[in-house]
């Protein structure tokens, strides 16, 4: 029983990362109908930026602030810088294509290739040696019976829920969120209403990439080894989680991320760990067979 609770806590932590990344996928998809395949690698860049910020800028080799200050200043700084990377990507790669009215597929290919460039560029620049992330938080363990909870786990889970709440508020209650939903509803009529489409899209990328940066920082704190390909696998899986939830829907991404986290952790807990991907993907495929547009997705009827 205790093992089950322990696994549930771990699954909540693991699912939080998936949920954070899947939220970024969903935001961009909801507005642009574009699968931003580079998002997983933006998460990886976020982790590296977090490393750079917390070691070379604020940390031991920079200003040498105390740990709590590094954490407090590092999180917003990482988010801002990662958001800058995401917006740069949008400016350089996606916007020209959108202006030309290119086929959606070409944009997807471009995104895929940008992800590869980020991964391998990182490998070429920084070398293949893995980076050790410094410990920024004093580890405190709370034990409830046999279940142990660290403060970091609580922070990660809390961050995921907080981000979900913030995004939900932005998309459903604010003017800019209304503009986002409007663009996804009809992108031809919206500019005629005086809504600045490009600004809204940039804001979307800022949100998505910023939260990917947050996820990168938290991930680096939880599993303090960084390598250039860490974003690829997590990115693909988070994307699949977003689709299972119903892509373009914020609740769907959140639920899908946690669902995938739970499936993976419970498979590892009760089966041989090598079967993780096989069982997880099989379950997701079955879900997609049952509900082809995901759990929260709405079937769209095409007009003839």
């Amino acid at each position, binding site marked *: 029983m205790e093992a089950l609770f322990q696994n549930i806590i771990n699954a909540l932590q693991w699912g939080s990362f998936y949920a954070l990344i899947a939220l970024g996928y969903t935001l961009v*998809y909801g507005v642009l109908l574009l*699968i931003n395949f580079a998002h997983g690698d933006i998460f990886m860049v976020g982790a590296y930026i977090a490393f750079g910020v917390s070691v070379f800028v604020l940390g031991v080799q920079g200003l040498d602030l105390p740990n709590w200050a590094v954490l407090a200043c590092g999180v917003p700084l990482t988010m801002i810088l990662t958001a800058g990377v995401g917006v740069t990507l949008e400016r350089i*790669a996606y916007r*020209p*294509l959108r202006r*030309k009215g*290119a*086929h959606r*597929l*070409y*944009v*997807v*290919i*471009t995104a*895929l*290739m*940008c992800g*590869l*460039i980020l*991964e*391998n*560029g990182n*490998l*070429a620049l920084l070398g293949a040696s893995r980076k050790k992330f410094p410990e920024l938080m004093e580890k405190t363990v709370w034990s409830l019976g046999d279940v142990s909870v660290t403060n970091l786990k609580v922070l990660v889970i809390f961050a995921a829920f907080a981000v979900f709440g913030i995004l939900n508020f932005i998309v459903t209650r604010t003017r800019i969120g209304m503009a986002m939903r409007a663009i996804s509803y009809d992108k031809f009529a919206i500019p005629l209403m005086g809504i600045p489409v490009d600004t809204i899209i940039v804001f979307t990328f800022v949100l998505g990439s910023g939260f990917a940066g947050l996820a990168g920082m938290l991930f680096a704190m939880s599993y303090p080894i960084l390598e250039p390909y860490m974003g*690829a696998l997590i990115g*693909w899986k988070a*994307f*699949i989680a977003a*689709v299972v939830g119903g*892509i373009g829907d914020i609740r769907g991404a959140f639920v899908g991320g946690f669902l995938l986290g739970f499936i993976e952790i419970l498979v590892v807990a009760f089966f*041989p760990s*090598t*079967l*993780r*991907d*096989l069982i997880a*993907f*099989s379950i*997701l*495929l079955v879900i*997609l*067979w049952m509900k*082809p*547009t*995901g759990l929260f997705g709405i079937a769209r009827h*095409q007009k*003839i």
Partner: protein
Amino acid sequence: MKKYTINIAFLAGCLLIVLGAQAGLFNLYIQSVILFMGINIILSTSLNLVNGSMGEFSCGHAAFMCVGAYVSSVVTVLLFAQNKILGAPLLPPELAPFFFPIAIIIGGAVAALVGILVAVPSFKTRGDYLAIITIAVNYMVISGLENLDIIGGPRGFMGMKQVVYAMTDVADIPWMMIWTLLGTAFTLWILRRYTSSTFGKGVNAICQDEIAAEIMSVNTDRIKLVTFMLSSGLAGVAGGLFAHVIGYVNPQSFNILKSTECLVMVYLGGMGSLTGAAMSAVLFTLLLEALRPLQIIKWVIIPLILVLLMQFRPEGIMGNKELSDVFPKLKRYFSFK
């Protein structure tokens, strides 16, 4: 005469390559580049059938290649090679040249059966959701093979070189070159015949407008099933050849990166263009070899080329046209149906 020019030219080219390899005009490195060209042509043209002609977005092509590679390798090693796990060869090695193509075809057939995994969901879903399903199938195949300890699991599987040596013992000619060229010729022929047949016209109809095609009495489900199976079966053939050329396979050599390579070749060549896909496979192989001294920077430059291509010439080299559409005068000399 016009009907046969292209076949004769192709055959003459293949003969020249084989004779050159036999006479030692090309060293082993050039031979291996030619072999990879053939394998890449099979991969890119078969993916082009789904991604270009049918307009779906499949990005897990390496999964079928993986199945074909493993199945054909296990069959040939079981029959003709001494292996720690599978034991002594079951057949005398003199029979290797005759059973090798059968093993490759078995690999392709099993890969085609795995293709049903993708084909059945594609009846209902399109676009992004289908892309997910293909990626998931890619992960599942790799993960499944890594858990099969009987064929080596994550350590990979070897012993295919012994089969190739068994063939060269029968007759000392470049066997793998011959089989690869035959496979390439077969692929190009069957794809051309398929897309220009009455049944295969439906493939392009699905690309243009699926609902309209359905209304105009095109049996879209059946066409999707056949097309996916043909595409994945050919990828399985490519995988089988690949395994025997390298002599070693492991599941991780068929991951998403390999699938991405296939995608790069298709979009470099131009969607829906058979000659474009073949040409871009040749170009891509040469590019990989030319950039080899740059090591890891190679994988920055190749995606960069594709990004620039999408910006400035998104339709690829050929852009949905065949060679004879670009140079109409060529039509006088051959007809390729």
